[in-house]
């Protein structure tokens, strides 16, 4: 069997496979819902209602989308340059740690200085955490997939140590939890009285900035060239190593911002369950968005809606909320296949 490129794909060729991928995802989810004793229509109806049914639930979806926009951007930036950063989870926590270190009373700064400082420090922490594996890749050829993955485990243990040691809240009654941020270090709400915080706006701005970098700057051009063919990019005079390192700094920085936004905007303190896998879900978000920064925003909202909706569906009729994770993983696999099939056909020899 071999793949044969399609010269000029028809509109049907470009639309039908992705549509089938979405249909297949819902088919898989329906079958699994049936297995768990839930009527698929009721399940999807409740997911939709749970995600968008009320003002509260819509804001909840937006809040849940916020860290996913950051991690999705982090992954999209890296994957576009074929830098396989699977360590956004650790980079997120690195950003959160720095936010807590600076924002719990160590510095007596007003909010307009405190917040940018925390955000920059969080970006720096995330960026530096990815710089290690990126250097190992460029210097020694060590595959970054495994190193970034292993760093997730290492860094979570480090956070666990911090929360039981140096960063432990003295008033925390023994729970592994940091002290709360001072009011100056808290991101305010977008609209007074509503739960949505400025992190969401920051996420949208970040998506715009990444889009501008991708389309309007030399770095954006170089990142794509390195991702498409590093060897050819090198021949064309692009400093491949430096581009990879810059990509790593940008990607890690974006993931670090996710940690800042979650602690400063939503939680107010650091715990070990700050992220239920935002770093990994960011991979799905980025892939569903075809690595496009503005697409990441939409994909993150979609993914967040499924998560928020599935939680409320699960409470209502008892179909496990892991259905959401299954839908996303299968959507990812079906979608990458569908996108291939818009450009190639499989021929038997």
């Amino acid at each position, binding site marked *: *069997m*071999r*793949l044969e490129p399609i010269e000029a794909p028809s509109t049907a060729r470009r639309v039908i496979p992705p549509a089938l991928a979405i249909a297949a995802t819902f088919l898989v989810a329906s079958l*699994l819902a049936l*297995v*768990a004793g839930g009527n698929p229509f009721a399940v999807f109806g409740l997911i939709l209602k749970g995600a968008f049914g009320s003002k509260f639930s819509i804001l909840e979806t937006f809040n849940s989308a916020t860290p996913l926009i950051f991690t999705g951007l982090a992954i999209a930036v890296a994957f576009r340059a074929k830098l*396989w950063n*699977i360590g956004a989870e650790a980079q997120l926590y690195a950003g959160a740690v720095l936010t807590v270190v600076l924002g719990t009373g160590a510095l007596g700064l007003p909010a307009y200085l405190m917040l940018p400082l925390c955000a920059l420090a969080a970006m720096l922490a995330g960026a530096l955490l990815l710089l290690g594996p990126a250097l*190992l890749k460029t210097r*020694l*050829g*060590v*595959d970054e*997939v*495994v*190193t970034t*993955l*292993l*760093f997730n*485990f*290492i860094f979570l*243990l*480090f956070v*666990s*140590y911090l929360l*039981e*040691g140096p960063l432990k809240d003295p008033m925390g009654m023994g729970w592994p939890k940091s002290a709360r941020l001072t009011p100056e270090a808290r991101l305010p709400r977008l609209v007074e009285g509503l739960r949505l915080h400025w992190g969401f706006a920051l996420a949208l701005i970040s998506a715009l900035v990444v889009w501008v970098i991708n389309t309007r700057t030399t770095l954006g051009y170089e990142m794509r060239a390195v991702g498409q063919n590093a060897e050819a990019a090198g021949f064309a005079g692009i400093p491949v190593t430096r581009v990879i390192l810059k990509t790593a700094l940008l990607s890690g920085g974006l993931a670090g911002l996710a940690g800042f936004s979650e602690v400063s905007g939503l939680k107010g303190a650091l715990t070990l369950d700050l992220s239920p896998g935002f770093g*990994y879900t960011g*991979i*799905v978000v980025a*892939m569903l968005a075809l690595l496009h920064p503005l697409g990441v925003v939409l994909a993150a909202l979609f993914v967040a809606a499924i998560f928020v909706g599935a939680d409320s569906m699960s409470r209502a009729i*008892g179909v*496990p909320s*892991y*259905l959401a*994770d*299954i839908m*996303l*993983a*299968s959507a*990812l*696999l079906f979608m*990458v*296949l569908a996108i*291939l099939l818009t450009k190639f056909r*499989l021929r038997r*020899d």
Partner: protein
Amino acid sequence: MDLLDILLSASFWAAAIRIASPLIFATLGELICERAGVLNLGIEGIMVAGAFAGWIAVWGGLPLWGGVAVAMLTGMMLGLVHSTLSVPFGLSQHVVGIGLTLLATSLTFYTYRVVLPEVSSPPKITAFQPYEVPFLSELPLIGPAIFAQTPLTYAGFILAGLTAVILYRTPLGLAVRAAGENPSAVAAQGLSVTAIRMGAVTVGSGFMAVGGAFLTLSAFDSFFFDMVNGRGWICIALVVFGAWKPGKAVLGAVLFAAFDALQIRLQQTGIGAVVPYQVFLMLPYFLSILALVLMSRRAEIPAALMVPFNKGER
């Protein structure tokens, strides 16, 4: 010094071999995939699925070896999904592998919740018991360390031997290795690179799942959500450390496991009173990264690893 006492005790080496066993299965599985040219990042999820499938089958009434078979089949099905996407369609092995890990893990947790909706702690099964090999288990030190393990551990070492023989001494093994080194040459011989690679990934994934099942059927007697805990990723590092050779990979797994057993014991000594326990738990992951760094300069990596093969294309 109590370090020497630890290193000379049979119980320490027995623990090392026990900890190494799931790694041996999964490392061999990954090695077979990579030797055929496919990086299988589904390993972590496949181990989770295997751990659950084997355990739930035994809980449902199958004998222990039946559980192992169910785990193997579960892994092979997941391997078939991986290889269908990554081989004939040539999709990014990174994306497919991570997608499969997410899918297998969430499917496992979903099934767990559906089958056992109301339990606070998972039910226990009667796991594999140690089998003392006659005569050999009476040898000093080596006896209790190596020859008083559970049958699944022995199976792991036998599998390593079999894998080495098949890879290096049979036409099948030659075909698998060639598919990972020079697929065009394989195609020129009239063999199907697609079939060889898909077969290798499917079988390799089965072994990974048995590695997962070792945790629930032999090391422990129950299933927990965070049971696999990065072991799959460690196995990928072990394949590199073992330079893609079964014997060295097993050696690497045992060394790694010895280190893991050592850090558990060191936690209980004077050092453990001073150093936070998280540092000990980090060591295995750091060790894996170190292994990758140390081995990075050697060029034994299969030449066509991660390179999709499309017939008629150069």
